[in-house]
């Protein structure tokens, strides 16, 4: 029966009012609500109060959301009581809660490093944060100088970030493709803007924003078209229903019987959906935006993107593949094998010759995406748990690393060229040691968080029969180790440049970020049992 005939019959069935479980959705609602409050504050508060107020509100909101996540987890929504919310469009289960927790943690740290105002010298007694005084002013123009003098600040970044966080919280929890698409855009659009807001080197910043925006929307189009095809195949956007259609257990309508025979719809849709997600996780060959955007964006934003986006995107990737497509894993696994291998190898090899520390970390994040993909490919519970744990470790260490990058500065702002990092270990051994610790964790040296994560994903992959992937993984780890160590060599065993950068003593905000990251690196490396258990308990998707 077509829709037209349905409407014509005049016998419109009553549409049931949607049932919304506000309590269980509270983490996202709190964040969105805080973001709205932030907009209002922006509108009504005097300029000088905005910064403290926005930071405070943002942190408060995130803390509230985190508390909500904790409460939900304690109440068992991550395990036995997990279920579907909002008419089945949002899932509340272990992976969702775990990743939401991680995203909120990462956001808290990101907000803290946004709030850092002690790094750039004050201008006319006004402390300078990492963001441009007035985004609309042309770089280097008169208007910009005036704005700077006047102590303008783009405090809109906090609500923007909160919107992004809200989207990210929703993304891994989305149980249908519609919600997922909306979540994708909700967290992407603020990020495009955030990229453009750097105080220094605004040309690069704007360029990063343009690139990110164009490529991001390009990939969204693929995602959307993929969704459309899958809808065409299965008649539904719901992930479980797609799975049912694939396995043939769905109630058969005539149209469905027709389309489910057309595997091309399914497979092309799957591939295009995967493109959208792989773009967000920065897998090769959809990675090209990563180095440029990471380099150009304001460093705190880069940290936030690198950490939280990856977590959210992997969460969605896991859910899509584990909930919707387990029935066709023999089709997508070989392809994902190829992507994983390409990502690990290309990320590691390309990083070898990088000269900019932010680009280096970008390529490193690509390589890590490859390692994470091996966990996704495992297609077993251990794989889920391993990816969850890896994301936790990776997110915290990444934020720490980017926060550390913000501290190395010369007269033009952050000194990200590697040559200016030479001899940093002699000028500032503490920072160099901390950064070295992060690098060692990235490199997967035992007793650091990175090693535990790597071990977890590799063993899951091996258990899933992907031994060759593991071998490629360890070999590219060795290549990756090379460039991490190159930085360490540079910091500790090279002569400092005569006019090299100085390390600025940060305020409590950045110091907190770095301390938390160090603690996480060590705790997740030395005593990861609790978090592994947590990830393991959370490794069951609800359908």
């Amino acid at each position: 029966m077509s829709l037209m005939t349905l409407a014509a019959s005049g016998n419109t069935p009553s549409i049931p009012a949607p049932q919304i479980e506000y309590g269980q959705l509270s983490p996202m609602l709190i964040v969105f609500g805080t973001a709205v409050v932030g907009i209002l504050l922006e509108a009504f508060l005097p300029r000088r109060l905005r910064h403290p107020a926005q930071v405070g509100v943002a942190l408060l909101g995130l803390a509230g959301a985190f508390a909500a996540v904790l409460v939900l987890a304690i109440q068992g929504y991550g395990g036995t009581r997990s279920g579907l919310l909002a008419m089945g469009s949002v899932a509340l289960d272990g992976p969702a809660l775990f990743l939401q927790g991680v995203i909120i943690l990462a956001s808290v740290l990101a907000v803290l490093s946004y709030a850092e105002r002690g790094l750039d010298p004050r201008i006319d007694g006004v402390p300078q944060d990492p963001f441009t005084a007035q985004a609309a002013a042309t770089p280097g123009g008169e208007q910009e100088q005036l704005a700077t003098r006047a102590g303008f600040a783009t405090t809109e970044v906090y609500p923007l970030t909160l919107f992004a966080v809200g989207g990210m919280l929703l993304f891994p929890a989305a149980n249908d493709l519609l919600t997922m698409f909306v979540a994708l855009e909700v967290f992407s659009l603020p990020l495009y803007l955030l990229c453009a807001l750097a105080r220094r080197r605004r040309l690069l910043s704007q360029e990063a924003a343009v690139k990110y925006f164009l490529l991001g929307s390009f990939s969204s189009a693929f995602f959307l078209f993929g969704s459309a095809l899958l809808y065409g195949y299965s008649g539904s956007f719901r992930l479980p229903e797609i799975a049912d259609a694939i396995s043939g257990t769905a109630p058969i309508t005539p149209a469905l019987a027709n389309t489910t025979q057309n595997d091309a719809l399914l497979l092309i849709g799957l591939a295009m959906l995967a493109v959208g997600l792989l773009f967000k996780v920065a897998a090769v060959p959809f990675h090209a935006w990563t180095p440029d955007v990471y380099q150009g964006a304001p460093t705190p934003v880069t940290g936030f993107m690198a950490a939280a986006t990856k977590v959210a995107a992997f969460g969605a990737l896991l859910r899509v593949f584990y909930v919707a497509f387990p029935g066709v894993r023999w089709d997508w696994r070989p392809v994902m094998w190829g992507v994983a291998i390409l990502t690990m190898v290309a990320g590691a090899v390309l990083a070898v010759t990088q000269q900019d520390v932010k680009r280096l970390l970008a390529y490193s994040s690509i390589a890590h995406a490859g390692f994470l993909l091996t966990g996704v490919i495992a297609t077993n519970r251990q794989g889920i748990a391993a990816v969850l744990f890896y994301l936790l470790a990776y997110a915290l260490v990444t934020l720490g690393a980017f926060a550390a990058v913000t501290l190395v500065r010369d007269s033009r702002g952050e000194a990200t060229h590697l040559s200016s990092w030479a001899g940093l270990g002699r000028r500032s051994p503490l920072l160099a040691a901390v950064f070295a610790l992060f690098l060692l964790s990235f490199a997967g040296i035992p007793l650091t968080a990175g090693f535990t994560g790597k071990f977890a994903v590799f063993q899951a992959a091996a258990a899933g029969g992907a031994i060759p992937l593991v071998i490629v993984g360890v070999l590219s780890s060795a290549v990756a180790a090379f460039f991490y160590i190159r930085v360490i060599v540079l910091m500790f065993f090279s002569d400092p440049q005569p006019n090299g950068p100085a390390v600025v003593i940060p305020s409590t905000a950045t110091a907190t970020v770095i301390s938390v990251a160090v603690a996480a690196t060590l705790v997740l490396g030395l005593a990861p049992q609790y978090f592994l258990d947590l990830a393991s308990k959370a490794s069951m998707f609800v359908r």
Partner: protein
Amino acid sequence: MNPVNYLYLAALLFTIGAAGVLIRRNAIVLFMCVELMLNASNLALVTFSRLHGNLDGQIMAFFTMVVAAAEVVVGLAIIVSIFRTRHSASVDDSNLMKL
């Protein structure tokens, strides 16, 4: 008319949009091509909705439109600001960062 033809049209539009992204230099045109891709998807969605006889696809199309509108806001803001800086909307001029 067989609804499948709409699907072919959607695929064609999508491809045209993608080709436009690859070929055109002007950021605005590039962005319009992306919009074209989104609308191609919308066409597909609506077609499938009709095919399956449920409303999900049409609802999705509405959402897509909203999202596209939001994207335009953000995108134009970014493109305009970079145009003001560089006095050029050519994406090929933005390659300070590479390698």
